[in-house]
């Protein structure tokens, strides 16, 4: 890669990526593996069939610390539209940081630790490219008595796929019992790690937060298992696209609201009724009257992928309705798929649209997301 990557930050697993023969690219200021010798297609399919290990240490890990859950969650609720007060110990929730216009500053995971001695803590995992913005925004609103601590000395690994639980149980038996969107501090062999049963691939799996100096040992331990392959950012992107999940800076940004982005599942009833969050007025109006534009999932005819930026039109018309925000080839489906924004009246499932690729119209249909069924682990009742 020449000198292109010399000014980039490195995760604790950088040397391992090199050793594994990864192709390294710049991503959000980090030198990250986009793919390993297996290649994006096989890495993607392997994750859907067995288990994939991802280095996501570039993401921001932080903790909001307050005197008790009531105080910390009440503060966080002033910045996000989700119920944080009702978040139970050992549970995690997906949410968004909102700006005063109701636009999305970032999407993030918030977890309430299970341990009683960490009462008042909320653990955050934010996007790498948004760390600085998020931390600055949160700090500028911090009341007395609550602090934001960022972890620069922790790695984050994701183990994803139908075999993830079986593999994880060999080294961290306590992880088997976690339900989707639950968190726990537990031992991976001899190392204390924070584990959540979640991920961003649509598969069952875990995210494992470990001390930086233990990350390589954990990664090597997992990679030594027959079911596990190292997976790069390329397949991470195609997996999350198939799962219908938003990528910040592409499918959501500071102009899009959670209603437009069709992620109102992150807003629970109490918050939706009260609108007591930044941009509440806009968001309540969009909830009541419908948004002007909406994110849709698109199934594309033929084989040509429509990439980000491709125009969305009415078939045969020359009026641009919107743009593709994520698009590519879906290895699981063997076909191109995309997401993009269209005026709400064109967002119904089944609506025929056209995408412009290299000057030509390609037929596309609004479809239900996710493109590939999610296989999260729900505990038997």
């Amino acid at each position, binding site marked *: 890669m020449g000198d292109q990557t010399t000014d980039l930050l490195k995760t604790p697993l950088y040397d391992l990526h090199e050793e594994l023969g990864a192709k390294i690219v710049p991503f959000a200021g980090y030198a990250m593996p986009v793919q390993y010798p297996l290649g994006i297609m096989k890495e993607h399919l392997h994750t859907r069939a067995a288990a994939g290990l991802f280095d996501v240490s570039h993401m921001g890990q932080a903790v909001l610390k307050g005197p008790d859950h009531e105080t910390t969650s009440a503060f966080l609720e002033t910045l996000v539209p989700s119920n944080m007060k009702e978040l139970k110990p050992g549970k995690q929730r997906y949410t968004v940081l909102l700006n005063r216009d109701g636009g999305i500053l970032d999407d993030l995971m918030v977890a309430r630790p299970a341990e009683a001695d960490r009462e008042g803590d909320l653990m955050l995992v934010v996007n790498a490219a948004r760390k600085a913005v998020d931390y600055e925004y949160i700090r500028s609103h911090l009341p007395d008595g609550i602090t934001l601590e960022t972890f620069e000395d922790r790695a984050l690994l994701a183990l994803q796929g139908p075999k993830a639980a079986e593999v994880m149980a060999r080294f961290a038996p306590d992880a088997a019992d976690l339900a989707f969107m639950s968190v726990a501090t537990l031992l991976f062999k001899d190392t204390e790690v924070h584990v959540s049963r979640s991920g961003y691939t649509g598969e069952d799996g875990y995210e494992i937060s470990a001390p930086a100096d233990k990350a390589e040992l954990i990664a090597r331990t997992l990679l030594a298992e027959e079911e596990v392959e190292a997976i790069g950012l390329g397949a991470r992107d195609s997996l999350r696209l198939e799962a219908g999940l938003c990528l910040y800076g592409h499918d959501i940004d500071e102009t899009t609201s959670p209603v437009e982005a069709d992620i109102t599942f992150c807003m629970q009833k109490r918050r939706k009724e009260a609108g007591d969050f930044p941009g509440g007025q806009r968001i309540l109006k969009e909830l009541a009257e419908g948004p002007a534009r909406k994110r849709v999932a698109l199934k594309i005819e033929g084989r*040509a992928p429509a990439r980000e930026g491709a125009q969305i039109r009415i078939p045969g018309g020359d009026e641009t309705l919107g743009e593709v925000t994520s698009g590519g080839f879906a290895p699981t489906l063997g076909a191109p798929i995309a997401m993009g924004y269209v005026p709400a009246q064109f967002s119904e499932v089944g609506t025929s649209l056209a995408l412009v690729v290299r000057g030509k119209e390609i037929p596309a249909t609004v479809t239900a997301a996710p493109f590939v069924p999610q296989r999260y682990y729900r505990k038997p009742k």
Partner: protein
Amino acid sequence: MSTYFSEDHEWLKVDGDVATIGITNYAQAQLGDVVFVELPENGKTLSKGDEAAVVESVKAASEVYVPVDGEVVEGNEALVEEPAKVNEDPENSAWFFKLKLSDKSQLDGLMDEAAYKAYVDTL
């Protein structure tokens, strides 16, 4: 039959005044898994530097430029059906199209295999 290479990582096998054109092994390795190929129409006249074909991997789209002037006489339709052939056999059965050369002297501006190999080593 002589084989020529371009700096844009195309190869040309010339037989008489017809060149069979594809992308090199180096190019397919850089692209990664190819999922889509678009070929030029038969009869299309192309000038040196024109975009002749499109090749897309999971991640990105790239163009195949024609390194000499000529007229397209045949496209490899098998690639449209099975784009992964580009990764499997790039310098043989996964040729993209055949071009009837209009100025064979342009071939002199291209590299031979040894020169191309040396060029790739500098990248």
